[in-house]
């Protein structure tokens, strides 16, 4: 079977717009959670989010092109360009029929859709921009990436809520493994800090309350006083490459993807299930050919909701025991929904790259039902990190798990 390695990383996130800045901020416990500064903030009950503040579309696209790309697509394109540049691949020298794009997003081009609704139903306009459809279709970002690089291999958009980009990366690794492509751009993007999307999340009553003393510390995964998740935005796109192809050109290799598990809880539309999570982790471990306790680091789904964190704790304990370090970096970069899996897999790859484990921030009060080693509040440098696992568990019940190792 062909082997699959990661040779390029692109990332736009609330805590950094390249993998090194992103990881240093995680290691130092720097939070991207802040007051949401928008023209609709006053209408929200929850006014905090992990927004991407230092992103200027006009630095990346001509004015007219930028206006025809949803923010989700802008993030996806910039992260893709960054990933390709980081990989050192010269796509013009590649057979681009052997290069593909697998992309994941939860709510797709929700900004465009939200603005369209406001225009029609609030402002009573009777027409929409001619490109509204092309900007808002769910495969808009995936299609724009294909066009940007003149890629002619397989392309697909995955929509499985919070596990979308984990699924995209896992499925892309199989495309290479089974010989259908040599290079895959894979990951996801999400930009849902819009009035409509935030109101929908408010309605679900799962968003964290703002910490009155420190807004940046509002997301508290695994802590007894956790009150929910904090919405975030951003993108991560990885370059996956067949091992021999990468080796032949002397590429830098961040890690090898050795396991991917994907299954459905089939239990409840929102409530996670221990059984489903256990099965997803076991599927990935079986493919990887290792035991759970052999992992050096687990990046948990760790949303910071009461239910998720205790269910995930029980599932991890059942599969991996209680000694493997587990952290939720969502405590700092928030929940990027469809993009979160890819962003957290970047945290795993960088953990191997730097031989360091990022912390779970804001873990001040221990919960008897959350009793693993969560790397509380302080990252660990100079530790052995050769095998990592990233968990993504979604509304709708699609659980997806990735395992990677150093070469």
């Amino acid at each position, binding site marked *: 079977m062909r082997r699959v390695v990661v040779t390029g990383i692109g990332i736009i996130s609330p805590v950094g717009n390249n993998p090194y800045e992103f990881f240093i901020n995680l290691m130092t416990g720097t939070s991207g959670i802040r007051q949401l500064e928008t023209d609709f903030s006053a209408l929200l009950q929850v006014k905090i989010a992990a927004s991407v503040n230092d992103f200027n579309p006009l630095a990346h696209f*001509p*004015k*007219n092109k930028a*206006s025809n790309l949803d923010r989700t697509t802008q993030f996806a394109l910039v992260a893709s360009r960054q990933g390709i540049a980081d990989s050192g691949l010269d796509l013009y020298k590649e057979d681009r029929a052997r290069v593909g794009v697998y992309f994941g997003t939860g709510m797709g081009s929700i900004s465009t859709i939200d603005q369209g609704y406001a225009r029609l139903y609030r402002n009573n306009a*009777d*027409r929409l*921009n*001619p*490109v509204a459809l*092309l900007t808002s279709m769910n495969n808009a970002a995936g299609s724009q990436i294909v066009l940007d690089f003149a890629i002619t291999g397989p392309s697909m958009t995955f929509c499985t809520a919070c596990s979308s980009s984990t699924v995209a990366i896992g499925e892309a690794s199989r495309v290479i493994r089974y010989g259908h492509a040599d290079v895959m751009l894979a990951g996801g993007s999400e930009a849902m800090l819009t009035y409509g999307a935030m109101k929908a999340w408010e309605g679900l009553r799962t968003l964290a309350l703002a910490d009155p003393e420190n807004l940046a510390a509002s997301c508290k995964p695994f802590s007894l006083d956790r009150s929910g998740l904090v919405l975030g935005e951003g993108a991560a796109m990885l370059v996956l490459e067949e091992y021999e192809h990468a080796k032949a050109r002397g590429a830098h290799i961040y890690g090898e993807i050795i396991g991917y598990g994907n299954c459905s809880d089939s239990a409840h539309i929102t409530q996670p299930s221990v059984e489903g999570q256990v099965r997803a982790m076991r599927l990935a471990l079986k493919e990887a050919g290792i035991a759970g306790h052999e992992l050096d680091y687990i990046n948990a789904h760790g949303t910071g909701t009461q239910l998720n964190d205790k269910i995930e704790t029980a599932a991890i304990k059942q599969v991996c025991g209680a000694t493997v370090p587990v952290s939720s970096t969502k405590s700092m970069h928030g929940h990027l929904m469809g993009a979160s899996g890819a962003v957290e897999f970047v945290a795993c790859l960088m953990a191997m790259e730097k031989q360091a484990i990022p912390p779970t921030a804001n873990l001040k009060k221990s919960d008897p039902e959350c009793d693993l080693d969560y790397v509380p509040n302080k990252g660990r440098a100079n530790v052995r990190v050769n095998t990592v696992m990233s968990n993504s568990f979604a509304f709708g019940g699609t659980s997806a798990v990735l395992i990677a190792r150093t070469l």
Partner: protein
Amino acid sequence: MDTFETLRQIIVDKYERDVSSITPESNLRALDFDSLNAFEIIFELEEKFDINVPTQIVPLDTLQDVVNLIDKTRSEQGK
């Protein structure tokens, strides 16, 4: 408001083209505009003049063709 001047301003603002390259005789293809760009330009003109251009439109080759379409619609809709 002059239709051509409005059109020229849209092209300069939205597409960042050099104003001197834009004349009534300019060909849309020569300006590197495809049919989607033409629809976008018509959308902007509809907004500016508060008109509704019919969904089915005649083939447009030059900017003068666009001006004629808009002027005809303005006249029919009294705008």
